[in-house]
């Protein structure tokens, strides 16, 4: 199942299949390792529900919901 990263619940994992957006935000995502094919885990959300914290390429990355909405993820498992 495909979802936006911003829609994932805490603990869900998946594989990035696409990164939308343009310009520097998109480039910044790429530079931080958010590229198609990378696997991610949603670790945590901030007390106000935004930003979110993910594990990617072995480290912790935080990004806002609006930036996470640019990342398309193929969920692992498929049961959920």
């Amino acid at each position, binding site marked *: 199942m495909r979802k936006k990263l911003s829609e994932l619940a805490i603990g869900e*994992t998946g594989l990035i299949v*696409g*990164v939308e957006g343009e310009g*520097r*935000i*998109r*480039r*910044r*995502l*790429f*530079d*931080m*390792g*958010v*590229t*198609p*094919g*990378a696997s991610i*885990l949603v670790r*945590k*959300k*901030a*007390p*106000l*529900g*935004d*930003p979110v*914290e993910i*594990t990617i*390429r*072995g*480290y*912790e*990355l*935080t*990004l*806002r919901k609006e*930036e996470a909405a640019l990342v398309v993820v193929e969920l692992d498992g498929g049961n959920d």
Partner: protein
Amino acid sequence: MKNFALAGNPNSGKTTLFNSLTGATAHVGNWPGVTVDKREGQYKKLEEVVNIVDLPGIYSLSPYTPEEVISRNYILDEKPDCVINIVDATNLERNLYLTTQLLEIDVPVVVALNMSDVMRKSGDKINVSELSKKLGVPVVEISALKEENLDLLMTEAYEASKVKRVGKTIIENKDLSHLIKDVVIAFKGKGVENPLFHAIKLVEKDEIETSNHPDLIGMVEEFKNTFEDDTFGNDFEALIADTRYKYISKNYSTAISKNPANLDSNHQKVTKSDKIDKVLTHRIWAIPIFIVIMFIIFHVTFSEDILFMHRIFGLNITNPTAINFFTGMGYEGMLEEAGGIAADVALEGVPSIGVFLQSWFGWATGSLIDLVGGAMPEGTWYTSLICDGILTGLDAVLSFIPQILILFLFIAILEDSGYMARVAFILDRAFRKFGLSGKAFIPMLSGFGCSVPAIMATRTLENEKEKNRTIRLMTCFSCGAKAPIWALLGAIGTWAGMDGGLFVFSIYVGGIAVAIVLALFMKLFSKDTYVSPFIMELPSYHLPQFRNVMAHLWEKLKHYLTKAATIIAACTIVIWFLSNFSWAFWNGMVEDIGDSILADLGRGLRYFYYPLGCFENGWTNGPDSWKYTSSIITGLIAKEDVVATMEQLGLTVETIALNGAAAYSFAVYNLFTLPCFAAIGAAHGEQKGKEFWLTLLFWFAMSYGISLVVYFVGELYVVALWAGILVTIVLIGLVVAAGIIVSRRHKKAEITVQA
């Protein structure tokens, strides 16, 4: 002398490595035109002394952040003899992403594989010779913290610097590599240096390259039309980034063999850092914990009543020796204030370490002034210049040092431990509504203590615009030195049922309210609707390094002392001259400050401040008005001087004849206006050229404007209460309406920009 550049990701141990290599030789400046730290130092253990330049921490060589542009320009233009690329071994994949870009430049590169000790401890193994072979450059395992293998690293770098190196790329995608080769040939034809690096950036459609070489874009565009990748279409920027990461996982990550014990069922390491994070960024507890930490920091730095021992337990210290100990020999002063009655002298509670040190520091500098004054002939102009002018002025500035250092000690610990990144994570959502990032919270809160360390703390804000806004809002947070003004005005305020406590409270809360409204308007009126992205690494927690924290404190101190010795000292001398001489200054110093140039300036300025009620009853422009305007001028040395000058000119609780409107107008003006020279100096250190002058203008316009409104509305209250209330409601309505209109327009603009 050879130049080695130190490049690497933030949090890769770069600062620690730099400090270890350069020891005490490091000095800090700014890169020309921007306020990103430029640090240089010498390494002396090789056969010749080598200069080491610490480039800003970066993840990539993209053209989007000042740090990246600086690093890229430095390597391309200044041509260091070698680039030492520090790589965090525990986070190899993302760190090597930058390495693949550095390797494309025609410069010798040596990779310093840091934290190899941590790696080994966890049982993971890394095959250094394999990695070195694959990268094609020397790799040295080091521990920057334990100073392991640093000499070997430098020897390797020194050897590498003797040999020319030609850039190499890992981009293997067949079609793309053809294109890159063609562009490289074109660049070579133009005689451009580092053709490979430029070629790849041009293929990525990098902003800087496309504007520098518009003639070659055609080649890329032409190829683009014939190219179609399954995933990326013809988006080369995405394709190249992806190629780099794919190549890294396929070729380099194999150099690591993970200890199977480190992987749980989810293939995620559960580390100590994770456990700490579970508590500190907990959905419910994160904010309370943060508030408690902040409270402790400010309490320890600024409180005059530690643990509220006076407020809660009624602790009073009356023993003169104890008072002298806690207040830096302050007993005599308190005795004087109490009119010489020893029974009335009591220290209300025990001061915090910050206040304690500040008192003793003040005592030391005060004694020094007395000592110097005693040794010099009495009554001469030069004794006065040195004692009343330079030393007293510097005393006001230097007295902040203990509190600055303590506050920065805490900030450095928070930053170095990794907690600061979490603070931004926790608060970002709330602060973003006001166009500020979560990180702006700490400088703003520090502003209630002292604007100087607060403005210096804005250095942690990455975005220049957010930093400028935060600095400009700083005067809204009433600093400790302004408190005497509120105390004095509060003591006289018996107008319209206002009591002192309520008055002071209204000043603090009013300042915060103005800050919120202004932050909103600054955000809405800002021309570019672009919000800086918040895509940030959350580094693992680790114990702060004593050495890093000390180096950080020393840098701040040096920076502050430099300002104190230059711009601030010059300004205090000017004020000294103005308050001690008449226009006929060749006749020597004046006896009465009322005859001084300062007094005349005060008299002249009152016409300028006339619309603000000139701080006297009605628009009568009475005989005392120049005294208020004079004290505004001396307030530039230190805000404590406002009250000091007023007293010197005979304005005391008994003699001040301000009505409510004028008192509020005067208070509000002093709250929002230009801070002291020390704080202005700090702003000058953080802002460059135009932005700094805009800040000064902003402070002035804000204070004048708000004070004007306050006075007019205040007078209405005096004339007719109902009219005052009515106008207040209308004004608040206008602000809200303006906010709504602007934000609508703003949203529209945003949509057009996106479309």
